[in-house]
């Protein structure tokens, strides 16, 4: 449960082992001189900037991992290393078991053409191509015929709700619409892995919300393996299966949203979680008590995966404790209103 329950399934789609990205001429010697994490002060003394500092993690198939951090934390650098838009200084990055850092240009091209799709913060749309042509571009680059590519691109415009705007140029679209094109383009080749680099950061808050919903809808249907970078903690909590929080190139904590809120690993992470409304993040399971046979439960039951906020009112209206069920409907625990109130309004729950 602590790692989102996904670690056990097969081999990871993405696996990073001690990845470093160091900017500066003395990167090599700096790396040799240290084991494990590089000291920031030492790096500064060697006039180097450490973008990614000893990052190791895995992403399982169908998992949505969000890399969260403030600007300059190295989150985008890490993403660029994994896509090899820039070369990591050291470490191993395995995409479906193959080390992307040792690939030759041809293999890399092949991986990008078939396995990866990416969405960019500033959309990265080709200004001289229409919506349809932009979406068809990766297919044509791959060598598809115009007819096939255009047909597929038509389907994609429907998927992202841009039908009727196929012949528009990017400059004629709003930001939200442009990013829909970006999303459609990144999905056109049906990639296994979907990279999103702050896809909604350039959008207005209302549009951002709308796009997040859209994104969740797409992901529910497509079940891609996703690496998503954002600086917005709320966004991360809303979307993620797991979150990696980065600071100065180091992954401070990598865990499920609930665990990050309830058990922040470092002071830095705790500061992020302080202001977070818990009821919006936590699932019922994190506040339920063990099943006590003697207890008299209410008729109402709730799913253990439900977010507290969505069922809080119903629970608080009950006079008796409420039963908690798992996916198959068996009772797995009970919920006391007093406990819920404590979680929602108390400073610290201290227990699960």
């Amino acid at each position: 449960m602590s790692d989102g329950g996904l670690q056990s399934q097969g081999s990871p789609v993405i696996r990073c082992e001690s990845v470093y990205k160091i900017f500066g001429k003395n990167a090599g010697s700096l790396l040799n001189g240290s084991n494990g994490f590089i000291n920031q002060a030492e790096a500064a003394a060697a006039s180097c900037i450490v973008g990614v500092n000893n990052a190791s993690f895995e992403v399982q198939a169908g998992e949505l991992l969000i890399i969260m951090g403030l600007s300059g934390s190295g989150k985008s650098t890490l993403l660029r290393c994994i896509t090899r838009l820039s070369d990591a200084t050291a470490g191993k990055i395995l995409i479906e078991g193959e080390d992307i850092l040792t690939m030759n240009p041809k293999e890399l091209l092949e991986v990008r053409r078939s396995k990866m799709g990416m969405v960019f913060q500033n959309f990265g749309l080709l200004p001289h191509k229409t919506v349809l042509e932009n979406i068809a571009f990766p297919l044509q680059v791959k060598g598809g015929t115009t007819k096939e590519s255009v047909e597929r691109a038509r389907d994609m415009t429907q998927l992202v709700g841009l039908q009727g705007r196929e012949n528009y140029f990017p400059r004629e679209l709003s930001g939200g619409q442009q990013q829909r094109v970006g999303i459609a383009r990144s999905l056109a080749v049906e990639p296994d892995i979907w990279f999103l680099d702050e896809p909604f950061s350039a959008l207005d808050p209302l549009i951002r919300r709308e796009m997040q919903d859209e994104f969740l809808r797409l992901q529910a249907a497509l079940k891609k393996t996703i690496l998503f970078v954002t600086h917005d903690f709320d966004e991360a909590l809303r979307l993620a299966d797991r979150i990696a929080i980065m600071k100065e190139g180091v992954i401070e904590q990598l865990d499920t949203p609930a665990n990050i809120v309830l058990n922040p690993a470092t002071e830095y992470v705790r500061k992020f979680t302080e202001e977070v409304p818990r009821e919006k993040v936590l699932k019922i399971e994190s506040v339920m008590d063990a099943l006590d046979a003697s207890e008299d439960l209410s008729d109402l039951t709730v799913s253990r995966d439900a977010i507290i906020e969505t069922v809080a009112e119903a629970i608080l209206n009950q006079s008796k404790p409420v039963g908690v069920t798992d996916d198959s409907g068996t009772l797995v625990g009970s919920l006391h209103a007093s406990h819920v109130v404590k979680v929602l309004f108390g400073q610290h729950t201290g227990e699960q």
Partner: protein
Amino acid sequence: MFRLSLQSKLTQFTVLLLVFAALCQIIGPSEDGSGNYLWRLPPLLKEIPFLINDLVRGLMFEWMPIDVYDPTIEEYEQKPLFREITRAVSSAFLFIIGAVRELILGGSKTIVAFTSWDFLRDNPWADWPALPWTVVAGWAMVLGYRLQGWWMAILAGLASLYISIFGQWAPSMKTLSFILIAAPVSVFIGLVFGILAYKNKVIEALLNPLLNVAQTMPHYSYLVPIIVLFGVGDHAAALVTILFATPSMVRLVLLGLKNVPTDVVDAGKMSGCSEFQMLFKVLIPTAKRDVLIGVNQVVMQCLSMTVIAAFIGAQGLGSNLLIALNSLRIGTGLEIGICIVLIAVVFDKMSLAWAHKQTDYFADLSFVERHKPLLICGVILVTGVLLAMAGSLLFEEGFNYFYIVPHNKGITTAPFWQAGVDWVWDTFFYMLKTFNEWLITSVLVPMRDSYLAMPVIATFVLVMGIAYILAGVRSALIVCGFLLFIALSEYWDRALITMYMATFAVIVSGVIGVTLGSLCAQNEYASKAVLLLCDFLQTFPSFIYLIPVIMLFGITDTSVLIASLAYAIVPATRFTVEGLRSVPPVLHDAGAMCGVSRLQRLVSIDFPVAFPHIMLGVNQTVNFALMMVIIGAFIGTIDLGQLILKAISEPQGTGIGITLGICVAFIALAADQIIRTWANNRKKMLGLD
């Protein structure tokens, strides 16, 4: 803080000026004319022209001899490789130019080249006639309409009409034919080098100083080496035009490619583009606008070279203009000048329209719809030919005005202009003469003498001091390097004369331009109008500016200076208006709420914020003034330009021409270094750009 630094800058300048004045007083020319290196540096670099000459000669006549089969003596002969290459290039160019020319103006050499004279005699139909001018005019209109609409079509039509009825058709088409060769070649070379520089940092680093020098070298100094390497004629003119026009294309291609957003580059990579796909499907299309503005620049540069290229044998409007000016037929010169300007304006507007045109990929058109312009062109061709045939019956005295209006049979307004010039001379003779004499005796001559009376060490101290105070140590050293080259060559005194003329032109045109710009910037409509006027004036090839001043002031230094002034006012005005208009409106609001008056706002808000941009205008003014001063050598000055012009007709000219050109380029680059560094620092400080 600001007050303090201003004061310290003031002190620095005062000290600098005092030192300069003291040096001027102390050091004088030595009596025996030798040895005093503080007065003039020894010409240590005077061998450079000869070295360049030897190099070129070696290359042309000795380097890498190869066996070449000579069909006339039916034997192999030893010939140097390089000369064979230049010969091949020359004849290729000559051939293509001839082909295009014959396509428009008629002729048979090209057809003969593929067949033989016998073939032509047996098949008289193959003797290609000229296109009737009505056809070319009609095509120009269709093209204009396609690119921008009716206005462009009318402009193109009127321009063709003017050219034709004034009897300038044949020379105009000759000029056109060589632009149609030079421009595409320049664009191609520019693209290649731009892409190479974008791909490779080393190439960029190597290319950058070359481009700097190439863009500031005066037009004339390109002529000499081309003559030596390629001879004289239309091909040489085309080559010199290409040489002159390519650098700005390289610059703009590089700029455009660098400005492609990183997200777009990354998106291309993540879509799995190969290098080739990346370049031609992502980078260049995205940079399309800059690339096409480069094309526009190339076309304009080509046109500005038409007159100068005539010095080395370009046929067409340019050579006619030169002949007219040389024989002081101002009226004819003016008419030809207007032709050149018209061609330039039409080309400028058309290529800009092309740059801003967006293709519609999805318009679902029928065959006829899609090929409508082509079909119309076909119709025009048939109509034009029929009209020309009808014309041959209609006009009995032998000149078919529907075919080609001959040179001497067009309408001419030359007598009118000539009469105008005479009238101006008769009426204002004393006024002009007095003004001219006053300017020469009480401004120009004293200014020149004082420039020449500067000891070299004082000049260095002054210029480097200014560079140091405004732009820092690095700039001071760079400027020193530039000056040192000139001081160590033989041409320091000539350079001083060039500098004095340029300084005069820059100061006067700067003052006029900035004043004019500031006044116009106060009103939105005036700003727009003056910017349009600047656009229009900038399409004039520089040589054209000489015509009206010769009309008024005859062949004197005054003419050159006034032409330089007129030419150099344009950038000063433009940048002032742009700078002042781009002051953020929020600053105006803030000022208004503090209760500033209009004048206070201008002095304490607008000017300080716009000043760096205005200085960039002044920088261009320096460049323009220098270019014009050098071009002015055509009507007789005694500075570097005159020497460059003289070098064209000298056997040893190559080296001298190039060295002199570099001297002029270095003057421009020194000024550029100081002003640009200062303006950029200042902009950074103000948090602009």
